[in-house]
């Protein structure tokens, strides 16, 4: 099948603009993706026809909004092949999903001397919550390193597992290196020792077909805004059995069953973890984004993005003095690099002036930067609406940077 790239690009109004008198090239997709027109239209439709607070209402709009919300939960359940709707918790984003698990898992399971293992390639959002909850509870926070290609050092990781290990928190896909981690294999090994596994799916779910039951992880977290859906909405998938065991996180709203002056009883899953008025708009938008992705086909998306990656890697390797970070065999569609000794801020500023949006800096992964002994990188992260012509423009801009800072 030929990927209908022209049609797809026409679905994203934001792409068709000039910045600094040059056509925009948007290569900051790992930070946040753009929204297809049908997602924007779904938000508009929602506010013009159906908007209301949900669940407890008996009137027409409330019922309509509740149905849209719960229907979306069902479709997200199918999208990642979760076991049932009770396993899908709506949050405001990956960071909240991760904090929810770290806090409640910590309260329930982490005692002094226990251990949590993470990796040096984590985004701060899957690193600091575990580091802090371990500090708070007297547990030990351990961090596995990498091989030279930027792959997880599995030997080191497995060597850290012992009878005190309670949980392994790791990312599905590194937002800096692009590395796709063997989460299924790691989960299988962890489960032999009764260790829970949390997968940060922020960079996974938008680029790869995800099947949480096949992966068998206990938790999987992701954000709407990184998968073509609105901001302010995210998902926590958790196995029903373990979610049942965890105490509630935030209090108020639908998560309550009965409130008395001296005590409170809590609602069932998934509501137990959804405090306050939910972001129905966000959920409606997320559902529309999933429809869109399903129509494209996640396999087609993944293979088109892989072709972009291959093209970019080839072109970059043709430029002298480029250092690419992350050359894992299993790699998602992004490239982190440095141009000679030019500071990433210098390079990024000029590339921006050529109309190309790349991200520069530590990418919320300071421990990784320290590990690699670099101040930061330039990162171009691709989505299925990007093209090889755009990559050519990036290559040209890199050459321009080299010339300007000669």
């Amino acid at each position, binding site marked *: 099948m030929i990927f209908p790239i022209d049609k797809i690009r026409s679905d994203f109004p934001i792409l068709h603009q000039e910045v600094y008198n040059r056509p925009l090239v948007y290569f900051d997709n790992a930070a946040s993706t753009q929204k297809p027109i049908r997602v924007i239209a779904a938000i508009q439709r929602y506010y013009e026809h159906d908007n209301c607070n949900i*669940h*407890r209402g*008996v009137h*027409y709009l409330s*019922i309509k909004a*509740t*149905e849209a919300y*719960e*229907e979306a939960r*069902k479709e997200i359940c199918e999208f990642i092949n979760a076991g049932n709707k009770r396993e899908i918790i709506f949050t405001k984003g990956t960071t909240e999903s991760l904090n929810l698990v770290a806090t409640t898992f910590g309260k329930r399971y982490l005692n002094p001397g226990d251990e949590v293992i993470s990796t040096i390639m984590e985004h701060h959002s899957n690193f600091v919550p575990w580091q802090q909850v371990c500090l708070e509870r007297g547990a030990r926070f351990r961090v596995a390193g990498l091989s030279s290609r930027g792959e997880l050092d599995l030997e080191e990781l497995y060597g850290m597992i012992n009878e005190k290990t309670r949980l392994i928190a790791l990312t599905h896909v590194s937002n800096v290196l692009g590395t796709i981690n063997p989460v299924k294999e790691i989960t299988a090994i962890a489960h032999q020792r009764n260790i829970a596994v949390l997968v940060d799916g922020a960079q996974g779910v938008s680029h790869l077909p995800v099947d949480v039951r096949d992966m068998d992880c206990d938790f999987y977290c992701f954000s709407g805004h990184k998968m073509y859906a609105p901001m302010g909405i995210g998902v926590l998938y958790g196995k029903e059995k373990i979610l049942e065991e965890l105490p509630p996180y935030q209090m108020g709203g639908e998560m309550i*069953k009965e409130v008395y002056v001296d005590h409170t009883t809590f609602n069932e899953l998934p*509501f137990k973890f959804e405090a306050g008025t939910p972001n129905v708009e966000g959920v409606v938008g997320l559902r529309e984004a999933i429809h869109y992705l399903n129509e494209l086909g996640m396999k087609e998306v993944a293979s088109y993005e892989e072709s972009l990656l291959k093209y970019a890697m080839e072109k970059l390797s043709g430029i002298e003095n480029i250092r690419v970070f992350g050359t894992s065999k299993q790699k998602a569609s992004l490239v982190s690099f440095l141009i000679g000794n030019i500071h990433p801020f210098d390079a990024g500023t000029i590339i921006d002036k050529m109309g190309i949006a790349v991200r520069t800096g530590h990418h919320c992964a300071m421990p990784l930067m320290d590990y690699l002994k670099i101040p930061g990188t330039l990162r171009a992260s691709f989505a299925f609406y990007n093209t090889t012509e755009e990559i050519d423009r990036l290559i040209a801009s890199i050459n321009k940077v080299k010339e300007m800072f000669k």
Partner: protein
Amino acid sequence: MKIEEIEEEVVNEFSAYEDWLDKYNVIIEMGKSLPMIDEKYKTDAFLITGCQSKVWLHAEYLDGKIILTADSDAIITKGIINILIRIFSNQSPEDILHANLDFIDKIGLKEHLSPTRNNGLSSMVKQIKLYALAFKTKMEQQGYVG
């Protein structure tokens, strides 16, 4: 009568009414005529949670059929319960388990009974199906044992 037949009957009765208020007048009448539950079952043990109004539901097994009685503190809820009892009471666990619920849509009560709502009477339908499953399992086990 079979479940589908009763369902058809109910759907026909409701099809006579175009306006929502007329429909609800019928439901209110049905609510008033609900065969009440035995007072001793109006306890928390028989309460179905998650409804806007209170619903008590009792089920027993008699000669291969499930007998349902119920009550509520709200009349419209009682009316809807009445319809559910008319359809599901005095039926076999097997038939209840396999019953298709299209009639809910057809008489326009989806808003009360839709399984996508966690606070509706849908909990009651779920509870009826759970009772059916429980009795079925129990009978099968007794069958095995002797």
